[in-house]
């Protein structure tokens, strides 16, 4: 799917931004395997496979990328703004870092409603050519904060991701937020995907 999107983008049939998920599929797949659609997910702009994992269809994805009415956001959002509220997917956000406090808000709502569900807020290094050492002070994200415990996970292994998410969900329901750092090995070395919940 993402390779096809890449070709469409190069052919200028997809406009604006197009952030691809290929190489990181284990994250979306592993996460979905460990949670339910009652749990919420929110992410940044690299949302194609997250949307797919939440039950989106290829038709909705490609229609949206190409600006058609049949797209999941009726062509009005584009690559960065996929949503599927029915399945607990809250987007698709363009402003770096915005999804983190929003994710906390989703978690707050889950806690407030006592619905035994959790929120996953995903954030990455924010590549765009910004090398990790330029983008953040400390790349050991999972050690961040005295208040929030952390996990370091191999993000290329879907089973490891699944176990981490299962553990994280149980921890969050019992004790509170947990930060997990998923390392990825992608063509641009040093990128990794993180999530907090």
């Amino acid at each position, binding site marked *: 799917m993402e390779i096809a999107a890449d070709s469409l983008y190069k052919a200028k049939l997809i406009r604006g931004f197009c952030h691809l998920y290929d190489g990181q599929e284990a994250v979306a797949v592993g996460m979905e395997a460990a949670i339910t659609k009652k749990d919420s997910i929110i992410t940044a702009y690299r949302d194609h496979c997250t949307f797919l994992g939440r039950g989106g269809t290829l038709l909705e994805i490609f229609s949206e990328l190409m600006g058609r009415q049949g797209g999941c956001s009726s062509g009005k959002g584009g690559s*960065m703004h996929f949503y599927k509220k029915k399945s607990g997917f809250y987007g698709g956000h363009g402003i770096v870092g915005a999804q983190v406090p929003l994710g906390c808000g989703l978690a707050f709502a889950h806690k407030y409603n006592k619905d035994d569900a959790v929120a996953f807020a995903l954030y990455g290094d924010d590549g765009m050519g*910004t090398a990790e050492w330029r*983008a953040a002070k400390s790349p050991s994200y999972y050690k961040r904060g005295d208040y929030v415990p952390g996990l370091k996970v191999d993000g290329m292994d879907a089973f490891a991701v699944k176990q981490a998410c299962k553990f994280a969900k149980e921890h969050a329901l019992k004790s509170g937020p947990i930060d997990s750092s998923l390392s990825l090995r992608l063509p641009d070395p040093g990128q990794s995907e993180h999530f907090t919940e």
Partner: protein
Amino acid sequence: MTVRDALNSALDEEMSADPKVFLMGEEVGEYQGAYKISKGLLDKYGPERVLDTPITEAGFTGIGVGAAYHGLKPVIEFMTFNFSMQAIDHIINSAAKSNYMSAGQISVPIVFRGPNGAAAGVGAQHSHCYASWYASCPGLKVLSPYSSEDARGLLKAAIRDPDPVVFLENELLYGETFPVSAEVLDSSFCVPIGKAKIEREGKDVTITAFSKMVGYALKAAEILAKEGISAEVINLRSIRPLDRDTINASVRKTNRLVTVEEGFPQHGVGAEICASVVEESFGYLDAPVERIAGADVPMPYAANLERLAVPQVEDIVRAAKRACYRSVPMAAAA
């Protein structure tokens, strides 16, 4: 000279002339600038004067304003002004208001620059125009260049200015080439802040615009000329302070006004211009002021919808004709 080269040369010359000037922002150094505006500057001036920052606008904008308090002259680059919202507290509360609140003790000689407004297919969160937002705030100067001459002259003026300046560029104009005279290429060249430029003289209708819309207004003027309507096109250059004298003098000559902007209509730049003209030149108006602005919706992604959401040359032509009573008036609240 392209607008990109105009901005680059202005930055280069001002950094060369004054060691207190430094550039800070995301990707301005090693990457040579997200849009290559700061190409070559890191090599020339070194990492102490060209600083790459992490993705934290609130942080680096605050740092810039603090440095300006102490007498340095920062140029803070926002990758787009959409991201300036993360730092707007520093722009307004820390920078704009300080000179007044300190009774003149603290001056803030800082420039906030970057692309503003719509690009192409980048969606609602990346296409907002902030001209009217910043221009409503006393203590700020807000500039928006159109041509390379504007880009060079206004950026140099902004860097030399002792007050905070918001410098709104346009991504789609960076690659455009404009003729520049020898005077413009001189390193002392400067364009006065607060003075609009009459890009094309006319006598039947005044069209005001800034940034990319100046180009559209000029094209509209060409079309109108063929139909016997002589349009005067004013390139605002300065949104705050607004050159009310030039605008009003023009309207007193033509008696008709069309304001053009890419941003949202409500509380926009056109609304302020209309108010100014009504206050100062009401008796000279022969027709209601026509306001052309972006559609009152978050910017859609689909290409056909985006085209409908942004003013086109035909919209300006139609508005000018309406102001000249050459076509049917538009229904209100369309």
